[in-house]
């Protein structure tokens, strides 16, 4: 029932191999041994090689596979219906899973809540900050990375790599997480180039490749010369933009190989930090914390290594922005107005302030509407 904001230092202390392994996606052999054999089940909503959300998890999961005595079992393309509950139950009943990780937002309510109640001896962790100790079972919990911090860095690099200062953003749905990423790109861009704008088009669906391509083309036609996005699998957006000869910033996982000419950098989750911590704790037989959240200050997000599209000034400014975020420099420096002129952020908020989790607006400088 603890809320852990794990710090880099405690993580280093917690296991000799901890961070060293975190830095290498495919892991080293580890001296640690789980005290007893543990089977860990992971459920993904899409394919493990989607260049996006699922791939980010699956790549990190490779680290857990290297822990002796830990068996990782995985299932991909599991929809957010009772199929996910049945998949998890099947892992518990047929494979003896003791820890189940659900990596899609819609798995939580009601499916994982019901399962945690039904199987009190099994641990469940869900990749979103939804768990509430007053409402939900104690063997359930969540983990989440604030990716908007890496999008802020994208904004910095994009503004200084762009000729026009117009950044295009292909977004899935106008929900708080997505809005926060759009607003963070804008604030990052304006931190180094006060006249920068972000033009956004919502596709309305998490995965709608045709509309994503149309939106990308429309943004390029509107004069945007850097395109970034928040959709499940950014492959189509990045490839379309590269084909049109504009620069790109990625999302979720590394899309650098898709845009050899125009890739600047991208916002990536660093799930391996969490999964390595879980592995270390399991190896020692410790109880897992219910909630783990973080961002740059505790090594839970990162930016993709700079591509050919990044200018030297952009790289320098983005590196400085990363150092700032690591030191806890706030992104949302108030007061800030939305793009209709209302003050929506009254003061400066810490990057993890729950106030920001309920964001329902686009800031001044974003061209677009959420309705």
């Amino acid at each position, binding site marked *: 029932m603890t809320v852990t904001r794990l710090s880099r230092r405690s993580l280093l202390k917690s296991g000799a191999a901890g961070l060293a392994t975190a830095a290498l996606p495919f892991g080293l052999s580890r001296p640690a041994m789980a005290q007893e054999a543990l089977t860990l089940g992971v459920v993904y909503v899409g394919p493990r090689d989607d260049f996006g959300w699922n791939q980010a998890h699956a790549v990190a999961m490779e680290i857990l596979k290297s822990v002796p005595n830990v068996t990782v079992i995985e299932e991909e393309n599991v929809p957010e219906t009772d199929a996910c509950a049945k998949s998890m139950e099947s*892992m518990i009943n*047929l494979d003896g899973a003791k820890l189940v990780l659900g990596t899609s937002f819609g798995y939580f309510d009601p499916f994982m809540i019901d399962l945690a109640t039904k199987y009190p001896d099994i641990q469940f962790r869900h990749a979103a900050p939804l768990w509430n100790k007053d409402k939900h079972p104690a063997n359930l919990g969540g983990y989440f990375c604030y990716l908007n911090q890496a999008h802020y860095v994208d904004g910095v690099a994009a503004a200084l790599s762009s000729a026009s200062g117009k950044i295009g953003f292909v977004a899935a749905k106008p929900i708080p997480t997505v809005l926060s990423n759009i607003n963070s790109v804008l604030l990052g861009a304006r931190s180094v180039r006060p006249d920068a704008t972000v033009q956004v088009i919502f596709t309305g669906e998490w995965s709608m490749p045709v509309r994503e391509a149309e939106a990308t083309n429309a943004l390029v036609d509107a004069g945007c010369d850097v395109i970034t996005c928040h959709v499940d699998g950014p492959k189509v957006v990045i490839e379309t933009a590269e084909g049109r000869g504009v620069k790109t910033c990625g999302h979720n996982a590394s899309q650098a190989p898709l845009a050899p000419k125009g890739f600047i950098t991208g916002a990536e989750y660093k799930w391996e930090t969490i999964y390595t911590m879980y592995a270390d704790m399991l190896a020692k037989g410790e109880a897992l914390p219910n909630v783990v959240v973080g961002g740059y200050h505790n090594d839970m997000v990162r930016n993709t290594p700079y591509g050919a599209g990044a200018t030297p000034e952009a790289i320098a400014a983005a590196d400085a922005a990363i150092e700032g975020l690591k030191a806890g420099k706030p992104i949302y420096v108030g007061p800030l107005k939305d793009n209709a002129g209302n003050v929506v952020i009254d003061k400066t908020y810490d990057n993890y302030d729950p106030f920001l989790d309920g964001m329902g607006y686009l800031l001044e400088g974003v061209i677009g509407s959420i309705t």
Partner: protein
Amino acid sequence: MEQAQSAPMPRLLANPRWKAVAETVAIPVIALVTAAIVFSGFLLFLGKNPLQFFALVWQGGFGSAFSLQNTLQRAAPLILTGLAFAIPAIIGLTMIGAEGALVLGGFAAAALAVPLVAAGSPPMLMLVLTAGMAMCTGAALIMIVGWLRHGRQVNETIASLLLTYIAIATMNFFVEGLLRDPASANKPSTVPIGKDYMIGPIPGTEVHWGFAAGLVLAVLLWLLMSRTTFGFAARVTGGNPRAAQAQGLPVGMLILACSAISGACAGLAGFYEVTAIHGQANASLVAGFGFTGILVSFLARHNPLAIVIVAILFGAIEASGGLIQRRMDLPDATAAVLQGLIFVILLASETLQGRIALFQPASDKRA
């Protein structure tokens, strides 16, 4: 072929009626076995053991009480969407709008449930009303297609497919706007109906009541389509609508009635998704049950009773899909490949109809 009396065949097959039944059963079974053999070759090519595969399908689909319930739970919506395809198919229409009717029906049920729950209506009353709402909504949607077909000669396959997109967009419009629960920030949904109002499982099991509803409807619709004048008229229309019209059959009404039944079945599936599974309407309702129902119905040759069996088979393949991914390290698409193979081979096997001598009436023999 020999004279029936002297032929060394099982006595049952001596009766032409039983021959017809045997043919109906044998051809899909032959298709299934063929698909299994072809699929085994595919597995061998991948360096996997087919026997292990089929053992895992058995273990994951039927091997334990948990597996069996997993299978039946997954079969529940497929029975209803299978029926939604089969009934129009009997009257000669290729209606593929069950997905839309399911989504819109489920959404309508959830939307009606919100004020009913807020007003403190008794759970049973609320469930009956929302079930009615879901069925009427689904029926109305597919009846539009039926009317377009009969009244305006619009291709029903295209119309029902396009209406499905409109249905999904309509649900998204309301779920993300007017009817959105403010608490559902990152996954727009309607207000949850709450545990007290949700349908529990069938006692002694974890399978929801949608399975029982599917069974009952399958039997009722089988009776309707094979044992009543309505069913006879529908089958005649399916055989030749012009001839049916010439005979004075009310073809338009029959098409509308079959469309309504189709939409109601799919809408009911949506009702169970909302009241037994999700407790609210959101994008998770769009799970492809309507489209899988098409395969189920084809495999069952649009026979309502056979749909139950085929839906259970598909439920088992899906229930064991995860186990296969985990144990054999095969991709998720494996189950889809198997389903696709079954479908294609089954369609091809239709050509065997009337060509296997064993099943032909003795009087058919050519001199």
